[in-house]
C-alpha cells in the first residue's frame, strides 16, 4: 500500500515536471534490455486466439519466436484508426521495433503509409497486397491467393454433400470475398455440376450472432456443407458440428471445433512466410515491396482431410492441388457465366492468379444463389 502511494506521488511529479528529461530516464532501462535481438512488432485487429484471421497471423508470429534472434512484440484488438498509428509508433519508439507487421487490411492507408514516411529506417510489411510504386520504399504489402485453397475445399464439398446444397457465409460483397465464393463454387461444380452455393452476407467482419443465425438458416434450408469468409469462423464451425452437418474451414485449421464434420479448409501459411521475411531483415537484405503467392509459393495451404472425405474426393482434390502447386492450372478459365446468365469470362480466356482483372471481381458465378446488392 505505502509503496503504491509513494510511486503515484513520484509519478505525478515526473509527469508534470520536465517531461523530456523524465521521459528519457523512464525509457532508458527498457532500451538497454533489448540486447542484439531484432524487435519485430505484430498488430492484430481482433483477438489473437480467434480461430481465424488474427490467429493465423499470431501463428506466424509464434513461428518467429521459436527461431530465436528476434524479439516478438504483439498487440491485439487494435482498431483501424489513429490507434494503430500510435501502436506502431509506440513499438518503434519504446521497444525499438525494426520491422512492423500491421496485419489488417485497413491499417495500410493512411496509417501505415504515414508512419513509413515518418520512420524511414523502419520496415513496414502489411497484409493485403496493396503496395504501389507511389508508396514509400520501406513499406511493403503481401497477400495470398487463398482462392486456390477455397477451390480445393469446393471440390471436397461438392463430392461429400448429399443434398447438393452448399452454404457460404461472407462478410461483405468485396472482390476478395467474391473471389473466394466463386472459386469455392467452381470447385464444387467440378465435382458435381448440379451443386448450388447459397451465400449470405452478414455485413461485417466479426458478427458472431448473425453468423450463427446464418448457419442455422442455411441448415434449415437443406444445406449440408458450410464454409465462410469472416474474421472468425468459430461459431460457424461449432454450429455446423452441433447441427450435424459438414464444414470447410477458413484462415486456420478449425478441425478441433468440429471433429466430426470438418472436411478440409483454406488456411494461410504465415508460419512459412514470416520467418523468411524476418531472416532477410536479419541478413540486411532489402525487403520485397510486394509479395504474392498461392499454393506454389507456400503462402496458403489446406487443412488435412476429415474422416468423412472419401477416397474419390481426396484423389480429385489432390490431383488439382498438385497442378496448382506446379502452377499449371487456371481456376478462372472461360467460359464462365455469372448467376444472371451473362458471360463474365469469355471462352478461350484464361485469367491466371496474377491477372489484375480478378482483383476487381464484381459478380457471382453460375451456381451461386444470392445477390450483391
Amino acid at each position, binding site marked *: *500500500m505505502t*509503496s*503504491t*502511494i509513494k*510511486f*503515484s506521488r513520484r*509519478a505525478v511529479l*515526473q*509527469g508534470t515536471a520536465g*517531461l*523530456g528529461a*523524465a*521521459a*528519457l530516464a*523512464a*525509457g532508458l532501462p*527498457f532500451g538497454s534490455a533489448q540486447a542484439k535481438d531484432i524487435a519485430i*512488432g505484430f498488430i492484430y485487429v481482433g*483477438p489473437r486466439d480467434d480461430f481465424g484471421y488474427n490467429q493465423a497471423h499470431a501463428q506466424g508470429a509464434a513461428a518467429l519466436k521459436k527461431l530465436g534472434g528476434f524479439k516478438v*512484440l*504483439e*498487440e*491485439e*484488438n*487494435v*482498431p*483501424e*484508426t*489513429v*490507434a494503430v498509428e*500510435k*501502436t506502431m*509508433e*509506440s*513499438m518503434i*519508439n*519504446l*521497444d525499438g521495433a525494426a520491422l512492423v507487421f500491421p496485419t489488417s*487490411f*485497413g491499417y495500410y492507408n*493512411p496509417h501505415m503509409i504515414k508512419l513509413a514516411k515518418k520512420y524511414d529506417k523502419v520496415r513496414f510489411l502489411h497484409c*493485403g497486397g496493396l503496395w504501389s510504386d507511389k508508396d514509400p520504399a520501406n513499406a511493403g504489402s503481401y497477400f495470398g491467393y487463398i482462392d486456390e485453397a477455397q477451390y480445393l475445399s469446393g471440390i471436397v464439398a461438392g463430392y461429400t454433400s448429399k443434398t447438393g446444397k452448399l452454404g457460404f457465409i461472407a462478410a*461483405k460483397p*468485396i*472482390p*476478395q470475398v467474391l473471389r473466394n465464393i466463386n472459386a469455392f463454387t467452381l470447385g464444387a461444380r467440378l465435382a458435381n455440376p448440379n451443386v448450388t452455393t447459397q451465400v449470405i452476407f452478414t*455485413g*461485417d467482419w466479426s458478427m458472431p450472432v448473425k453468423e450463427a443465425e446464418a448457419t442455422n438458416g442455411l441448415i434449415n434450408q437443406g444445406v449440408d456443407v458450410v464454409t465462410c469468409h469472416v474474421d472468425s469462423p468459430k461459431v460457424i464451425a461449432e454450429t455446423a458440428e452441433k447441427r450435424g452437418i459438414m464444414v470447410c474451414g477458413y484462415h486456420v485449421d478449425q478441425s478441433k471445433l468440429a471433429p466430426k464434420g470438418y472436411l478440409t479448409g483454406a488456411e494461410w501459411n504465415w508460419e512459412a512466410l514470416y520467418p523468411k521475411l524476418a531472416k532477410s531483415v536479419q541478413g540486411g537484405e532489402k525487403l520485397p515491396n510486394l509479395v504474392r503467392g498461392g499454393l506454389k509459393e507456400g503462402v496458403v495451404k489446406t487443412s488435412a482431410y476429415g474422416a468423412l472425405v472419401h477416397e474419390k474426393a481426396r484423389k480429385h482434390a489432390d490431383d488439382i492441388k498438385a497442378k496448382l502447386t506446379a502452377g499449371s492450372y487456371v481456376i478462372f478459365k472461360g467460359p464462365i457465366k455469372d448467376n444472371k446468365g451473362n458471360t463474365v469470362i469469355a471462352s478461350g480466356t484464361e485469367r491466371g492468379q496474377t491477372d489484375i482483372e480478378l*482483383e*476487381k471481381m464484381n459478380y457471382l458465378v453460375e451456381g451461386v444463389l444470392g445477390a450483391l*446488392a
Partner: protein
Amino acid sequence: MRKQRIVQVSPVSIDDASARWQDILRSGAEAVAVPLLAVLGALVVFGIFVSLAGVNPFETYNLMYAGAFGSWFSWQNTLTRAAPLILTALCCALPAQLGMVVIGGEGALVIGGLAAAAISQALPDAAPLVVQIAMAIAAMAAGAAWIAMAGGLRHWRGVNETIASLLLVYIAIAVFNHLVEGLLRDPASLNKPSTPHIGDANMLSTIPGTDIHWGLAYGIIACVLAYILIYRTTFGFGMRVAGGNVKAARMVGLPVGRLVLVACGLAGASAGLAGMVEVAAVHGKANASLIVGYGYTGILVAFLARHNPLAIIPVAILLGGIGASGGLLQRRLGLPDATVLVLQGLIFIAILTSEVLYGRLPWLKKVKS
C-alpha cells in the same frame, strides 16, 4: 445548512466572507479528492488482479505510467486518443443536465462523419478553409438532427430517449454502410468501401509542435463553452431546473420542450463534430473505420466526469492514457488486451460508488459554526 447561512447573511462580515471561501475551497478539494481516491482504489484492486495473473503489479503501474504519461511521445499518444472522447462525452453530458440519459453518440458521430465526407465532394474547387468550415457545419447539423430526433421522440411521443438514441445508432450505421457501399462509394476503393478522399489540401493539420490533430482543441473549446452554457447562462439554469424537477420547471414557465431539443441538438452537434474530425484529420474519407465505439466510450467518460463539461477533459485524458498504455502491457508483460478493459471497468465502478464519500471525508467535513 442552507438555513444557517441565511441567518448569518444579515450582518455581512469578513468572517462570513472567509467562511464562504472556505466552503468553496472545501467543496473544490472534495471534488478532486473523491475521484482521486476512487481511481487509487481501482488501481489497488487492479494490482491484485494482475498479481493473480502472475504479473508484478508495480511493474504494471510503472509500465502504464511510461506508456501513458512517461514521455512526450506517450503524452501525445494519450492526448490523440482522448480527442474524440471529449466530444462524444459531451453528447452524453449535455442532455444529462436535463436528467436525460442519451447514449447514442456513436450514431451522431457516424452520421456527422458521413455528412462531412459528402459535403466535401460537393465543393471540389473551394478553398480548403471553406471546405473545412462546410464540413464542420454539415457534420454538426447532421449530428444535431440525429440526436434531436431522440429528443423529439421523448418530448412529443414520450419515447424513452435512452432506447431511442441507442436504436438510432443501428439506423445510423445501416444508413452509413448503405451510402458508403453504394451512392457515395469511391469506385477505386475495392476491398474497403470508402467515400472518395477529401483531398490532402482539405485535411486538418496538427497542433504546431505536436502530432496531435486539432480535434483536441475543438473538444476543449466545446467543453468550456458547454460549461459556460450550463453554469453561467439562464438557458443553462433552465436546463438544470428542468433536470431537477420537470414539473416545477413547467410550473415556473420554462420551455421544457425547447430545452430538451436544444440540449439534444447541441449534444449531437458535438458528436457530429467528432465524426468530422475523424474524417478530416485522420482518415481523409468516410469508411467503416469510423465505427469503432468512440461514441460508447464517450458515455463512460461523461459518467465518470459526473456530467461536468470541464471534468470531461481530465477524464478523457485518463481513459486515453489507459488506452495508450494498454499496448505496452500486452507487449511487455504478455497480458491480454482485456486487461485495460478490466481496469476501465474497475475505475467506473469505483467512481460510481465513491459518490457516497461526498460530505463524509473526515478531513473535509464541513466545520459546524
